[in-house]
């Protein structure tokens, strides 16, 4: 099985702190990590390799520092990695990113299966995975919660959708955006880390991808961010202490629920 995994380096979310005075995000000292949802994509590829054999290529688009995220995926069991990086990519929206990533995937080789996380924890769009799949002309599956089988050039899998799971199938090559419930990612081993350190991660820049400049970065992005705000999420609600006023607290909730029609005025036990 020839597999690729698309990963992204993101700011570590547990460290997100908001400056209480200015309401802006404090970026200093925030560590970068492999997007937590991408760990499940890496894990699923590694599991399939263990079952079916094959090779896994990790591909990431980002600043040179994203090599670290690629290395950690290799440490989990992937075989090689490519970094797609160029100043010309700066300011790419999801369309420009997807076009660039798809070109990088083509450059990296031919694949039967391509994995991506459901979305990145920073941009949170979930648009890049399916769009790359479309650019590559692959079968596109989002919200994949289980790979049932890969056989005879065909994949059968489950998708977690509203209210349940659907089982669907399509021919390879396929791009799968996986959700967290698909697996529990392994930790990387020391041997894996050593192997990652030895593995060279070649660079794919704009010139090597052969995409016209007009389609790259900010200029190649149809969407423009015109304003960024840092909302304060505080509501200044009414806080009761159950110890001092147990009934008052419950009554306040009751009144609120009734106001919203969740509880009927005259409670009937007809049902």
């Amino acid at each position, binding site marked *: 099985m020839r597999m690729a995994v698309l990963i992204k380096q993101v700011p570590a979310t547990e460290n997100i702190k908001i400056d209480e005075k200015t309401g802006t995000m404090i970026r200093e000292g925030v560590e970068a990590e492999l997007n937590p949802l991408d760990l499940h994509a890496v894990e699923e590829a590694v599991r399939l390799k263990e079952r079916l054999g094959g090779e896994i290529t990790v591909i990431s688009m980002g600043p040179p520092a994203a090599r670290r995220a690629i290395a950690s995926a290799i440490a989990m069991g992937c075989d090689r990695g490519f970094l797609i990086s160029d100043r010309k990519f700066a300011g790419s929206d999801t369309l420009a990113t997807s076009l660039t990533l798809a070109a990088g995937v083509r450059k990296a080789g031919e694949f039967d299966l391509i994995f991506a996380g459901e979305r990145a924890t920073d941009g949170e769009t979930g648009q890049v995975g399916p769009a790359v799949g479309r650019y590559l002309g692959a079968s596109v599956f989002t919200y994949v919660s289980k790979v049932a089988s890969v056989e005879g050039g065909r994949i059968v899998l489950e998708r977690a959708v509203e209210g349940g799971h659907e089982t669907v199938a399509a021919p390879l090559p396929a791009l799968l955006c996986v*959700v967290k419930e698909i697996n529990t990612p392994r930790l990387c081993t020391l041997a894996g880390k050593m192997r990652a350190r030895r593995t060279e991660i070649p660079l794919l820049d704009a010139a090597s991808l052969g995409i016209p400049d007009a389609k790259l970065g900010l200029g190649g992005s149809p969407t*423009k961010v015109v304003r960024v705000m840092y909302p304060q999420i505080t509501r200044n609600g009414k806080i009761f202490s159950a110890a001092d006023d147990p009934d008052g607290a419950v009554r306040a909730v009751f009144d609120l629920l009734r106001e*919203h029609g969740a509880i009927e005025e005259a409670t009937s036990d007809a049902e």
Partner: protein
Amino acid sequence: MPNSRGDVWTLAEVRDGAIHSVSWELLAWGRKLADKLGSRLASVVLGSGVADKTDSLIHHGADVVYVVDEPELATYRPDAYNAVLVSLVKEYKPEIFIASATTTGRTVMPVLYVDLETGLTADCTGLDIDPETKLLLQTRPAIGGNVMADIRTPNTRPQMCTVRPRSKRPLAPDANRRGEVIVKRGAAADLASIYQFLSFDREKAVGLPIQDAEIIVAGGKGMKNPKNFALLEELARRLGGSVGASRQAVDLSWAPYSAQVGLSGKSVTPKIYIACGISGAVQHLAGMSAADTVIAINTDPDAPIFRVADIGIIGNAMEIVPKLIDMCPGGCGRKGGEAR
């Protein structure tokens, strides 16, 4: 294309053969946009056996409904859906095309915008028309709700986005509203699909999927054990709501992943969110701070969840939840299992 501005389009969503209520929410957004632009509002329905289900879309605000009713579209197949939509967009050239940020909308649109070479903004919580440029102003949260961004698509058409479910109430239906229904046949080449739908396994959970729920009773690690967690199911059942969970509760297998609220789970926008034994970590707040009303029950007066609570109760959830359950004997709330 100055002076020949196209219509505002919404993608209707069909689930279990019926128009789902998110379609009407989109029409409420679309109505506002179309009125500000002075253009028509159209809804697009793809499915099988849907041709006679267009009334509710008109009653909820659509001026035009485009229907493609073909057996091949009975289930969501990415390639056929995409080809049919590309053909429609190329024929009618809408100015704006919005879909709900459901699993379907979040798959249809990212495939479609590649073919249309235009912009797509994900999971918007606010939409407006810029009075000067007449461009669509798309507001969306990012980085776990810590940042809100305004985004525009100035040069390409249609301007596309997905919209977070429940970010707007549907308009009151008006049974006297009249509109135009345009039934289109799908071209054979468009309907051909490499995807095969095999089966659907419905989850046995209390109430609606949390993304659709008006009331969510959510629990975290503070519920201590699965038996206590089951109290929340009882409360949810009686209120006609659904059960949500923090990641800790999901990791402990007290609730399925489909119930997880937050950064690596679902973003929800219920009318009422009752958080029981949930500390309110930023990653959890990312998924629920847009709820209309938040009620929090926690023993720790400094728990961050209280900062986003409209009503906070400092106390033991195991004592307070049973009292809430007792308030409505035998399930007296609105009926569960219905969209609205």
